């Protein structure tokens, strides 16, 4: 388990150092906006805020409500493309 954690840590570090992580994140953001994911999520947020009342909404509540929904709503094409890119990165840097 320790080795696993260490492996992940080193991978993350490599990603960040390379600048690849930021690039991946920007790519993901753009794709999600294009496919309408962001608007869907915003609509969901509106409902939540209306339910809970504007004054009582906290950021933690919002995060806990939004994240699982967000994960589920990501379209497959976007997911595939990003997984592909990550895999090529790992292969290039011969981590596995």
């Amino acid at each position, binding site marked *: 388990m320790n080795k696993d954690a260490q492996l992940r840590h080193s991978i993350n570090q490599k990603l960040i150092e390379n600048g690849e992580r930021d690039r991946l994140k920007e790519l993901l953001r753009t794709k999600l906006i294009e496919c309408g994911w962001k608007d869907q999520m*915003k609509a969901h947020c509106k409902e939540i805020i209306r339910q809970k009342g*504007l004054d009582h909404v906290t950021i933690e509540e919002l995060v806990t409500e939004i994240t699982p929904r967000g994960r589920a709503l990501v379209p497959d094409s976007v*997911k595939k493309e990003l997984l592909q890119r990550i895999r090529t990165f790992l292969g290039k840097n011969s981590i*596995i």
Partner: protein
Amino acid sequence: MASSRKSLGSSIHFLFPVMELTVLSGIFNTLQIGLTQDIFAELIDDVCLGLCFEVHRSAKCGFFFLDDMDAESMQEFEIVDKAGVDIFGQVYNQCKNRDCECPNCGRTIAAARFAPHLEKCLGMGRNSSRLANRRLANSNNSSLNKSESDPEDNDDINDNDWSYSSEKKGLSNLLFLCNDCRSHRCPQHTDDQRRSVRVFFLGPSGEVEDMGFQTNSSNSQRGKSVSDHPHIPSCYAPIVTTLRTKKHNLLNNLQQPRDSRQVRFDL
């Protein structure tokens, strides 16, 4: 049977490392897949978090709910998509038929022609010298072309009355056209200003009105020299074409005294 078992056993022994490799690579694959999935999940979480911050801030600052309003006003301003009508539902050929009244001449002009008409009417646009000025320039040019050679021909060719008045107007017109608008009734200057300029250039005789030289009667004012005009000082020089060259020539001629040769005053 025994041999088959043995061969089976041996084959299993042979196969086992191969199977091991595939199993191992399978494990590696799953590990790799697992890793990529985890990295992807982290990225998604980051994006979600960013979205939550944005939404929370805009909700607390009060600009989150700005774009969806009550049903009434949504219906009122709904986008119209019919033919022949713009997106507000209005027919858009109406304004072209409206007529405007010119404040200067009082005529009713179509809206599309109003701006050029106003230019010409007030004499203030770029290419808008009033028709009178243009005709004046034409008649002056045509007379100027023949001025040096045949003094008498000019009398014959041009109508006396017309050129007479144009000459008189020419004196005051060409001298005292406003630089900006080339009109001798420019609204930017008052009559007093015009009179004072006239006086400055012509001396006290400038007090007379535009057509004041008529007091000397005869129609044959044309062809006389400047010095013959009773009201104009002899240092005054003839002026040609544009206002700038007019000014320039005027200044030049004032500095250098003219010779005694008769100076034609055909403008």
